[in-house]
């Protein structure tokens, strides 16, 4: 018994120590360094036009990429699970997974090759006065690209788990396909969708590599929050770097809090935990 409880404590200490060293300590250091010299410099950093512009740009990128990939993700998952093509499912699956495997820098370069001045559409786009690379559309495109897989990948297993019985029951009760989707399918998969949205948002907020390549990094113009952190840090403006980091962290926390809006209306509905997809209980 003694050794059993002893090893349990050892395990706990190791796990907590690991978390403390790798997560808690660095995060608290950011908070500490942000407020080290009081609120004045923090306020200054927050009102810096470059910061405001970066925040705006990040919010635009997130605001477009997350809804776009949520809608696409749910549609794509429905198509793959409910009406799988006879051939080539593996190809579609690997294509969806590609952004996860590909380095974001490569994604950025690829976008430049297509939309850049010397790219495929580049010439035509410039002639028509449409700017994509080194501009907001490029940043949005890059963000969409790298965050594409999350909703699809979360929703597919949940859709499989839910099956088609509930939908078929709804049809026999007179519900059209659209009514069935909104009233039955979507509520049934909402946990998968919500989790996918959180992952997408987190990734979109934190995207650096692809955006760094396509944005051109013009401070106050094409800089997102992550780029602003880097830029501030490089010019030794530590308070601005830490403050911006803290804002990024707070946005992430906000995302997690927003998840609770999706929380089941009553705790009773959750009683059926064993039927929920594995690994999602922690989010309840």
């Amino acid at each position: 018994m003694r050794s059993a409880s002893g090893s349990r404590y050892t395990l706990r200490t190791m796990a907590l120590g690991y978390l403390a060293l790798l997560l808690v300590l660095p995060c608290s250091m950011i908070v500490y360094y942000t407020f080290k010299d009081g609120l004045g410099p923090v306020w200054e950093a927050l009102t810096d036009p470059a910061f405001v512009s970066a925040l705006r740009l990040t919010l635009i990128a997130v605001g477009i990429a997350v809804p776009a990939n949520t809608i696409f993700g749910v549609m794509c998952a429905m198509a793959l699970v409910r009406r799988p093509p006879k051939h080539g499912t593996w190809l579609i699956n690997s294509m969806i997974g590609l952004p996860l495997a590909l380095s974001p820098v490569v994604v950025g370069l690829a976008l430049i090759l297509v939309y850049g001045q010397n790219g495929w559409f580049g010439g035509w786009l410039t002639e028509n006065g449409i700017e994509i690379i080194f501009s907001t559309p490029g940043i949005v495109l890059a963000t969409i690209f790298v965050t594409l897989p999350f909703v699809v990948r979360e929703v597919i297993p949940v859709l499989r788990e839910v099956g088609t019985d509930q939908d078929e029951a709804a049809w026999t009760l007179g519900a059209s396909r659209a009514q069935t989707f909104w009233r039955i399918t979507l509520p049934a998969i909402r946990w998968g969708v919500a989790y996918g949205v959180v992952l997408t948002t987190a990734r979109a907020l934190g995207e650096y590599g692809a955006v760094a390549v396509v944005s051109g990094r013009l401070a106050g113009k094409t800089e997102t929050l992550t780029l602003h952190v880097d830029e501030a840090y490089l010019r030794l403006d530590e308070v601005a770097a830490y403050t911006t980091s803290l804002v990024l962290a707070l946005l992430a926390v906000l995302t997690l809090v927003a998840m609770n809006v999706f929380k089941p209306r009553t705790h009773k509905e959750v009683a059926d935990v064993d039927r929920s997809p594995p690994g999602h209980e922690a989010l309840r």
Partner: protein
Amino acid sequence: MSIAVRQVTKRFANGFVAVDNVSLAIASGSLTALLGPSGSGKSTLLRVIAGLETPDEGDVSILGEDVTGVPPQKRGVGFVFQHYAAFKHLTVRDNIAFGLVIRKRPKAEVRARVDELLGLVQLDGFADRYPAQLSGGQRQRMALARALAVEPKVLLLDEPFGALDARVRKELRAWLRRLHDQVHVTTVLVTHDQEEAMDVADRVTVMNDGRIEQSGKPRDLYEHPANEFVMSFVGPVNRLGEAWIRPHDLELRLEPNGTTSEAMVERIVHLGFEVRVELVLDDGRLVSAQVTRSEVEELELLEGQILYVRPSRTTVFSGTAMPQGRP
């Protein structure tokens, strides 16, 4: 006829023929069981009737109207699934009300109808619960109420009690029979359990390999099976050469009388009132006899004992022709 299926064939994408040129007529107000082993096509046939599967050939009509191309939404069928298909995010009340809400019925009417159905399926007091808080039997009663709410022309039940334990299954079976006598909606029940089919249904259609083997009243199927498959599927049976003998048609005697064969009692299984006696014939073949408890006591049966058996009734099939009952 309430439901008429004419020469329906359903092939799946992998080439498997689930339903093979099946024709079937189901009388209004009846409770018909589609009985067969798994893979016999009974569920697929039910789904074809509901419009959840499209037949490759043949047509289906409900109350005289050809519905072959009609989507499930417009067929006026109630469908109950083996695994309940409960809408988990809705309360029992909202589950039952679903079809009525879709039809945009006035709120007061929906409420009254749901209350009535809750009473019918004995779930009064459960209206505000979620499916996760119900037992399997309660969930299935809820699913039944949900299907009945829209007053379907026909009620289709796909192995409705298949996921329940034996005791609840028997209770629900008896309850379904009473319910059917109350509401009189034409009902088709798919099951692989011959006892369930015999117990609940007015008529039983036995399916095998995508084809109908025989349709008839439960008693007719049992006493006049059309072929060996039906004979062996609708009840336990012994096979001795060409002859098929039901366990209760095997007479046990203590003395030989010229027409009997010698057998040794291998095992005596007490099933309450019934007792199953497993015997080894002198040529080594195994047969089982079904007797009552009092017979066992009268014969003072013991395992290892030597007995003499005689079939009181045998059935012999010649090819796939009609059976010849021999007294």
